[in-house]
């Protein structure tokens, strides 16, 4: 049996969760959850409506919530908003500094550097385009380009390593 993750990424930040109590739903009552979210204790009753739909009662307010898994991550929608919840444990360790990856599927427009080239933090490395908008990926650190793994025209996915920048000392070892 898997454990509920205790740290998630959502809305661009990290959030800590603790389930303090859980009472499964019974024949005549909804499930109950007492949890601490970012240090704040909250109580919820949750009635399952099927297909990821929940009627939640939180602090006296009732909200219809829809939960839709998306791989390890999960979208949760309610009244005109949606949030992507990404369990930290389910993700690979955060990208080591020096790897340059797009945050969305994209097409490579231009690679601006070559392997072995010395670069500075913030220097433009790769230009990608997604949905008619160009984005420039920059070097996360000062160092040397150790690897360029894509070329113009390549389709890439979110999280794919496009190039790597290592510290100069490491480059010497290569």
């Amino acid at each position, binding site marked *: 049996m898997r454990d509920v993750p205790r740290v998630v990424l959502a809305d661009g930040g990290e959030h800590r969760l603790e389930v303090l109590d859980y009472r499964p739903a019974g024949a005549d009552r909804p499930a109950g959850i007492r949890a601490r979210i970012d240090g704040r204790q909250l109580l919820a009753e949750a009635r399952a409506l099927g297909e990821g739909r929940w009627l*939640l009662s939180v602090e006296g307010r009732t909200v219809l919530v829809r939960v839709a898994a998306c791989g390890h991550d999960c979208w949760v*929608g309610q009244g005109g908003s949606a949030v992507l919840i990404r369990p930290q444990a389910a993700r690979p360790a955060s990208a080591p500094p020096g790897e340059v990856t797009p945050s969305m599927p*994209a097409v490579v427009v231009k690679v601006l550097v070559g392997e072995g080239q010395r670069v500075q933090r913030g220097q433009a490395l790769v230009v990608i385009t997604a949905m008619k908008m160009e984005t420039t990926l920059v070097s996360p650190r000062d160092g040397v380009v150790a690897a360029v793994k894509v070329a113009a025209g390549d389709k890439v996915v979110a999280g794919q390593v496009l190039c790597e920048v290592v510290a100069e000392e490491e480059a010497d070892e290569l």
Partner: protein
Amino acid sequence: MFSRILVANRGEIAVRIFRTCRELGIATVAVYSPADRDALHVQQADQALALAGSAPEDGYLDVEQIVVAARDSGAQAIHPGYGFLAESARLAGACRQAGLVFIGPPARVLELAGDKLAARRLAREAGVPPTAGTDQPLADLAALRRQASRLGYPLLVKAAAGGGGKGMRRVDEERQLEQALQMAAGEARAAFGDERLFLERYRQRVHHVEVQILADDSGRLVHLFERECSIQRRHQKIIEEAPAPLLDDDLRQQLCSDALAVARAAGYRNAGTVEFLVDEEGNYSFMEINARLQVEHPVTELLTGIDLVEQQIRLAAGEPLSLAQEDIGRRGHALECRIYAEDPTRDFLPSPGTISVCEAPAGPGIRFDSGVGAGSVVPVDYDPILAKLIVHAGDRPRAAARLARALDETCILGVSTPLELLGDIVRSPQFLDGDTTTDFLERHFADWRPSPRRLQVALLGWLAERLAGGETPLPPGGDAGSGGAGDDPWRRLRRFRMGGRS
């Protein structure tokens, strides 16, 4: 009248055009790129033809393929929608040669409107001054620099052939000018094959107001009043409305008759839009002519009760205008917001993916023009517009309340959308006051964040799903001391009414 129309577009606009066709008893033909094989517009047409192309955009931009598809399908006319080939004089010309009708203005009007410098000169000659700027393309950097300091900063570098924010750069001080010119020229060359640039004064507190017009083959013209489209991000509109809150009847009358003067001077045909910038004092200047159906056309449709796509089709078929100016009335207030696959917390970065849930709002005065449904893939290759939510009500405050309510009923999961931001905008006092200048977002929502309260509820819903699925909660960490034995949380919970409003 046509018996079959091909729509050379995708997404919500293709679906929207099919709807009118069906109401008119006209058979519909879709075209699609390999990436769009399972797209909604393909399912909504009577017939669908595949387009070839190595890049996903190739097909929708390939005049020859589209003309061949129209002929193969037996369509008599092509509706280009907006974007892609909507303002392509080449497509209009190719249609004519192939004995097909292009549903839009003729090639000569498209060429004129597509050249922003020519359109500026035309407006000036028609007695409608264009925005402060240059009327001639400027060849060398020295000349541009001189013109720029004459105009003053901040200014906009624009492509003569531009559109949709492409080839456009804002320049706040002289030292940025050279780089902006290079980037704009590069973008313009890539997007339009035309790197001519011009300069326009950038004005901060202005409203973007545009007038919808219709013209038949005899040159008879009517206007369908104005739309205000000031709320923009990255020079792209996201909220539009009609009527414009700041216009009084005199100013509205002037603006509409000036729009007609420009359209008349252009020899305009079919549906089009004349765009203006209007300042707080009611001074206005001509910006450009958009020779196509606009994304935001539904606000005019709800305001006037006139189906603009039907008008386009009838006019293209050679019917005379059936509307006299005095027959065209305004009723109440219409608001539209665009729902893009983009993340407003990350500078509106596009957010491609697969839509898992797509629930449309309903109820009085609601229109939802969508190009996606549950299961739709939002590819990385196209403009990320998913849907438009349009509402109509008796007046502006009620329309805003209706839009906020409808946004709350909308649920799209699987890609990021700005639903929550849009809801916060239409509820904001600044929006309700009509403080809708083009820098609205920068002034009032630059630091916008999603509500932490909603996040908490979302996390509780997520926990409910996981716990019900059999996952075990880890024992509380060392600091979880509160809520001890004497406190029965469930007893307190039972006081909450399920299903009721708080």
